[in-house]
């Protein structure tokens, strides 16, 4: 009986193998989520109204391709940040005006796994913009990781709307 076990069972076990997953199943959409708003004329006492933009185009400064191309009725946009630089700039065009949005950020490289590679998480250190379309900016959550949350609130100039 033991001899049979000695010879037969190993052959069946040779068929077993347990290799780890080589496909990345971790969410890897990392970027800054910007919500649009119109500042209340009553100051901070009234809630901020979330605004939709009729048509918006967004392009990264230093990149020719458009991230948003005349997209209609958006109340938020999602912008990936540079992993090789601490400044990411975007040109935002809407209502016949173009503004440049500057996002200053730290990059934190995190090795996730061999299947996923490295994720670069960010911490927003400062934001700035030109003011044709954009009235002002507020940082809501400076930390940017691989889950979606509102990071910036972008107040639109009311006279453009």
């Amino acid at each position, binding site marked *: 009986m033991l001899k049979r076990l*000695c010879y037969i069972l190993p052959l069946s076990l*040779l068929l077993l193998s*347990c290799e780890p997953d080589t496909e990345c199943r971790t969410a890897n959409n990392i970027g800054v989520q910007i919500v649009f708003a119109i500042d209340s004329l009553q100051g901070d006492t009234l809630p901020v109204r979330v605004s939709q933009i009729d048509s918006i185009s967004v392009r990264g400064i230093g990149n020719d391709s458009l991230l948003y191309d005349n997209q209609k009725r958006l109340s938020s946009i999602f912008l990936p940040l540079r992993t090789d630089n601490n400044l990411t700039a975007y040109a935002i065009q809407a209502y016949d005006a173009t503004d440049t949005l500057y996002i200053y950020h730290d990059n934190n490289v995190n090795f996730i*796994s*061999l299947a996923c*590679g490295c994720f670069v998480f960010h911490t927003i250190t400062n934001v700035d913009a030109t003011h044709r379309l954009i009235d002002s900016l507020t940082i809501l959550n400076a930390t940017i990781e691989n889950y979606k949350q509102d990071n910036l609130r972008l107040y639109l100039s009311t006279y453009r709307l």
Partner: protein
Amino acid sequence: MRRLFYILVVFALLPLTLAAREYADTAIFQGINLKLDLGNSAFEPLRSRGKIQSYEMALNTDIMHRFFPTLEMGYAQAELSAASGNFIGYGGFARVGLDLSALKKRRSMNMLLVGLRIGTAMQGCSTKDVIIGNSYWGYSTINYVDRFRADAWGEITAGVQVQVYKNFHMGWYIRYKILFSRGRTGALTAYYIPGYGYKQDTAFSFNYYIGFKL
């Protein structure tokens, strides 16, 4: 799975008390067994298409044909590729533990063995060409080279040993492994651990060996 672990531990330790009384008048030291792993050495390169090599040997002391304090040592190396990087690691490992003969008849070299092990591995490893970036701004790669890593784990083993010729015997072990050093993440994470296998919380492995009683 944890419940299974506890049940196996209890079953593995139960014969200790019985055997101590049963073998009170038997010579304690019954020899030393040297075992050379064949199955894993051949199987790993075959299964991984030459990317993993693992070699090991074991020494155990036969105490009253019942208890087998065991020392296992080996070397492994791995060169593995995945979608976002390449891993190279090489290092040694050792396991210490105890096997118990689970058969009533214990005079021959034929045995059914159950046991426990504590294993540790040390390796030098590199993770290269790790992809970083995003589709809009582009990708680049970074390397984590010449890292040192140590891991530890526990094992529950079960095996069979049969005499083939005089002092020669052969057999196999199946091992259920639980990684203790699983909490570490980041660039120091090893994709493959010598003596353990792919870095997962638990793993099964298998040894097929030929042995000689000294």
